[in-house]
């Protein structure tokens, strides 16, 4: 071979001086075709003036072939394909290295085959490796892999696992279409999405409720399926009673949950009791962050509940709906432009009005309750780089008492989102939304007839970016800004004859902004998710602010001055640095240990002095007197899956400190109070506990068990010696379990059992009379508890035949759900009240009150065509 060296001859069609290294790659090699040694060949090329860079001792002693009339690029590519060398162009030099596979990024989305709807949280796994990714909140993923062939496994709960091969030669955009799983029973599909998500996710303490078309959540009271009801069966999530709508997550208060519907905050998540505003028909995915709050979120001290609406079928029109004792619902969806854009519209109307009227004893004093909600969504996916969404929610509740008093309240939101792929590795989301919560009370009662209104409106712009370096390594950053406008109350005469005055409380203005950056990365068996959020809050005018005597607590009598702020003038500024950290140590294939720390700040507070919030409670911004609430949570958990991920389990410990909670004085007057600060007390709270979770995900029998041992308590800051008092909603033990069993293709049954320690109660030590009113006298707050709460529910789902009598497949699907709530008719005590005995006045009697003193049957019918 050496003999060739002397006769090697190389000429270039293009002189190097005429082009850069890229164009040099396209020059022809005129070395005599045939086999040559690699190193001398490269040296010859280099000697001819081509800017090759290599170190001889790192290259293999290989033989290469040169083809007649081939370009340098072609030659190098062939050597790369033969796995001899790799090359790259850097700084006008062509670097030659020992062979190393090249990396390419595949990005794209996972969609439902039938409807083309984006699937959130679908798992993409490369077979035989630990490499993988999960689709984000918009259904997108990005994964950087070695070139070549890979077997990809795409899994999503409620869908058949898709195994497919891809050959990666360059950066590419892929849409994986998966088919709904119609065989497997998905009655109680809740929690982790990926098969081993429980173990591998680096966001600890997330409860996930997946409400896809193929799965139906555990039916609850009166046969209705409800998001909040189902959330309450998860560890660490509680409500104070069966009639209370607010939820408490890891000892947090009801206003400390950031509830997002398609990114817009919902201020009152319930219609009546525990019937949530989320129409299950229109909801796709519910994620509850209980511990670690990703830096992209903030603004509440306890948790984030993220609800995403479904997108609508891009390929065919369909209708679904149902009717039950409580409500009737109908949903329509379909393509606007087939495969490119779709719409979804759904409406729900309450039905229990008639039942109330028939029970009401007289025609005059009857009470009428009703609610409606409407969900709308339009999305367009004109090309692979852009997706646009427009979604809205409009809810209304109406409660009429007697002839002439009507209360209306409701949330409305409108969100616009634009998902854009700048490059295969850079994903962006831009959202703009308006969210409003308002209520109106109309009382036509002469002569004091009035109309009072209150509203909170948020205008927000938010932007998020995700940059994926390589699998399991991505950077998230973004900003958000919310302009809050709160009208605490306007009260006007109902008409010209009414003897009431117009009262308008000052509108409050606040700008809540944040910037965040976080990285998810791995090092050995450790996965890290760390970053921070820097949040700011500006409270600005126009507003009138009272000045109180510095020596006394704020009260009506200590006002010494009033300062008037002009429009846009800063009244008070707060800012907070909120670090967040989560570490997942993958001990082995089946288990991991996760640690997390989150700090959050809350600049908005619900003003309520009842045990559970009322729809007419108002929200208040942090201001000169009311500081932001700050919370810090530490958690550690062990996660383990068994039997090919058929079973998953976890145990988690948490400790949470909450500083500057807002509380109210006894008998505080919170309605139309222009100086609320005089009724406010600041306290501090802490909560801690352990949560156990065990779930069976596959098979004829599916379900889970959850147990929480916890404590949540507060004390007033100024009293350091004073011990903590347990919170009203604290439940020491909280156990729930849900199982579903598929009996046949058409019949399945499910059952819930819940057990919880009774909530704290304050018992009177004494009684006395004042003007013949028997008054209970309470000494120590929350020193006793109600009796333990337990309840068993049962439901049966019966599907109509799939086939007609002639054997052909029916076009429609329909099913009935029968439920029994409180099967053994336990009289669970909701509360005690203390009153004078009717039979012997002057004596006190304790009455236990049960909301459901009996078994409550329910039935719903659902269809789809």
């Amino acid at each position: 071979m050496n003999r060739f060296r002397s006769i090697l001859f190389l000429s270039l069609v293009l002189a190097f001086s005429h082009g850069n290294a890229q164009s040099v790659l396209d020059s022809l090699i005129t070395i005599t075709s045939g086999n040559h040694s690699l190193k001398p060949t490269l040296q010859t090329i280099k000697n001819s003036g081509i800017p090759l860079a290599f170190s001889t001792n790192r290259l293999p002693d290989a033989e290469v072939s040169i083809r007649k009339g081939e370009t340098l690029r072609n030659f190098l590519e062939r050597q790369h394909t033969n796995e001899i060398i790799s090359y790259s162009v850097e700084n006008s030099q062509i670097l030659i290295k020992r062979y190393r596979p090249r990396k390419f990024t595949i990005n794209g989305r996972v969609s439902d085959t039938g409807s083309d709807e984006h699937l959130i949280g679908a798992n993409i796994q490369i077979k035989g490796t630990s490499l993988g990714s999960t689709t984000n909140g918009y259904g997108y993923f990005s994964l950087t892999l070695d070139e070549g062939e890979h077997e990809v496994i795409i899994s999503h709960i409620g869908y058949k696992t898709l195994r497919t091969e891809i050959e990666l030669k360059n950066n590419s955009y892929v849409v994986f279409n998966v088919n709904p799983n119609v065989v497997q029973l998905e009655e109680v599909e809740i929690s982790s999405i990926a098969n081993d998500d429980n173990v591998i996710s680096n966001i600890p303490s997330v409860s996930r409720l997946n409400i896809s078309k193929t799965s139906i959540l555990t039916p609850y009271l009166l046969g209705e399926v409800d998001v909040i009801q189902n959330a309450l069966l998860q560890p660490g999530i509680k409500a104070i009673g069966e009639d209370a709508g607010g939820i408490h997550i890891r000892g947090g208060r009801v206003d400390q949950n950031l509830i997002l519907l398609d990114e817009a905050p919902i201020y009152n998540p319930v219609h009546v009791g525990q019937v949530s505003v989320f129409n299950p028909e229109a909801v796709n995915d519910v994620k509850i962050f209980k511990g670690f709050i990703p830096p992209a979120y903030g603004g509440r001290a306890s948790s984030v509940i993220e609800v995403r609406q479904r997108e609508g079928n891009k390929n065919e029109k369909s209708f679904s709906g149902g009717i039950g004792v409580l409500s009737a619902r109908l949903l329509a969806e379909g393509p606007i432009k087939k495969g490119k854009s779709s719409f979804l519209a759904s409406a729900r109307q309450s039905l229990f009005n008639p039942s109330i009227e028939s029970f009401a004893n007289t025609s005059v004093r009857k009470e009428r309750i009703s609610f409606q909600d409407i969900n709308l969504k339009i999305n367009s996916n004109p090309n692979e780089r852009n997706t646009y969404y427009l979604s809205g929610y409009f809810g209304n509740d109406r409660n009429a008492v007697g002839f002439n008093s009507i209360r209306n309240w409701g949330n409305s939101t409108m969100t616009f989102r634009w998902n854009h792929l700048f490059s295969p590795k850079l994903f962006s989301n831009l959202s703009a939304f308006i969210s409003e919560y308002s209520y109106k009370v109309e009382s036509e009662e002469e002569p004091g007839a009035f109309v009072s209104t209150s509203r909170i409106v948020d205008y927000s712009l938010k932007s998020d970016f995700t940059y994926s370096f390589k699998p399991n390594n991505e950077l998230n950053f973004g900003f958000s800004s919310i302009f809050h406008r709160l009208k605490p109350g306007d009260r006007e005469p109902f008409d010209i004859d009414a003897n009431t005055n117009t009262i308008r409380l000052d509108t409050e203005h606040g700008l809540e902004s944040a910037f965040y950056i976080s990285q998810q990365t791995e090092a050995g068996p450790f996965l890290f998710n760390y970053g921070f959020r820097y949040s700011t809050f500006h409270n600005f005018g126009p507003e009138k602010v009272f000045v109180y005597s510095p020596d006394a607590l704020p009260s009506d009598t200590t006002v010494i001055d009033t300062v008037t702020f002009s429009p846009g003038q800063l009244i008070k500024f707060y800012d907070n640095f909120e670090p967040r950290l989560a570490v997942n140590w993958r001990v082995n294939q089946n288990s991991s240990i996760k640690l997390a720390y989150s700090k959050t700040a809350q600049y908005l507070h619900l003003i309520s002095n009842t045990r559970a919030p009322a729809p007419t409670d108002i929200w208040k911004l942090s201001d000169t007197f009311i500081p932001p609430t700050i919370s810090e949570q530490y958690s550690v958990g062990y996660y383990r899956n068994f039997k090919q991920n058929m079973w998953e389990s976890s145990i988690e410990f948490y400790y949470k400190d909450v500083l500057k909670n807002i509380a109210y004085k006894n008998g505080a007057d919170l309605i139309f109070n222009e100086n609320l600060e005089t009724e406010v007390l600041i306290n501090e709270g802490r909560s801690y506990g352990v949560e156990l979770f065990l779930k069976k995900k596959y098979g004829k029998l599916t379900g889970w068990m959850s147990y929480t041992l916890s404590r949540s308590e507060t004390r007033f800051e100024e009293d350091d010696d004073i011990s903590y008092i347990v919170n009203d909603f604290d439940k020491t033990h909280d156990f729930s379990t849900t199982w579903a069993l598929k009996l046949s293709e058409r019949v399945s049954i499910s059952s819930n059992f819940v057990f919880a320690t009774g909530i704290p109660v304050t018992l009177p030590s004494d009684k006395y009379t004042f003007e013949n009113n028997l008054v209970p006298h309470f000494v120590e707050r929350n020193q006793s508890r109600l009796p333990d709460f337990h309840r068993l529910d049962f439901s049966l789902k019966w599907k109509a035949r799939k086939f007609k009598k002639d054997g052909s497949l029916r076009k429609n699907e329909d099913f009935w759900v029968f439920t029994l709530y409180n099967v053994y008719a336990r009289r669970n005590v909701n509360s005690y009240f203390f009153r004078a005995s009717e039979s012997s006045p002057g004596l006190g009697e304790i009455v236990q009150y049960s909301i459901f003193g009996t078994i409550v049957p329910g039935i719903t019918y659902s269809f789809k065509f």
Partner: protein
Amino acid sequence: MKRLTIILAILLFSCEEVVVIPLPGEQNLLVVEGWLTDAVERQYVRLSRSNSFSGPTNPVIEDATVLVQLRNGPSQTYSYVGGGNYLSDNPYRGIQGEEYRLSIVLPNGDLVRSTWTTIESTTQIVLLSVDRFEENDPDNPGQTKTVFFPRITARDSANYQNYYRWMLFRNGNQLTDPESIILQNDRFFDGNFIPNLFDAYEYSIGDNMEVELHTITKEAFDYLSLLKSQTSTLSAAASTTPAIVNGNISNVSKPEEMVLGFFGTRAISSASQVVR
């Protein structure tokens, strides 16, 4: 909303049951009840003691020395008349704008006093008229009955924070259902006619309808509001949290010993009419 739920539940499935549960130990606190009106009459004060919530009726205090002092003026002495009640030895009235204080010396020698409290100006009832409505008679299905109720014309004085309490009487007996403590402040109608709708207090033909409008102090209003919230709300999710009803009385000899109750003033205007 809680109200809706409760109503929904009550109508459909809820239940109530009287129970006996262990309670914290009794405190036996002194309870003072007294009002001074602007009408010449024998004014009253009542003294009793709290006892266990599940215990017998409250014991009364018989041997105390009771007097009401006018600031920079004479005192009125009270004597025990039974049932825990003490009446002023002579009829007298509180003078508008003056300050009064209740002083008690208990049988054990402890001095107990209220804070100084002012008598407000009376707000006059201008007119009492009888209104009516028809409703289905629950006792006779298919029949309707006429319900009578009072409507009051009274004007609030402008630019002054007024606090009111109403009392309704049927044939001399105070009506306590649906509520015995009816309170109003003039935040929403300052300077206007005082809105009132007493259609929940039913009268029939031949009844003597009597209404009293009491102008009270802010302290009395706050006390009665808290008392009302602690005695009348159903203890469900909507309820206020249980609290001690703090009044304006303290034990001067033993400041650490809590005294319950209130000594207040009221300027009364009343009107009555027989329903025809």
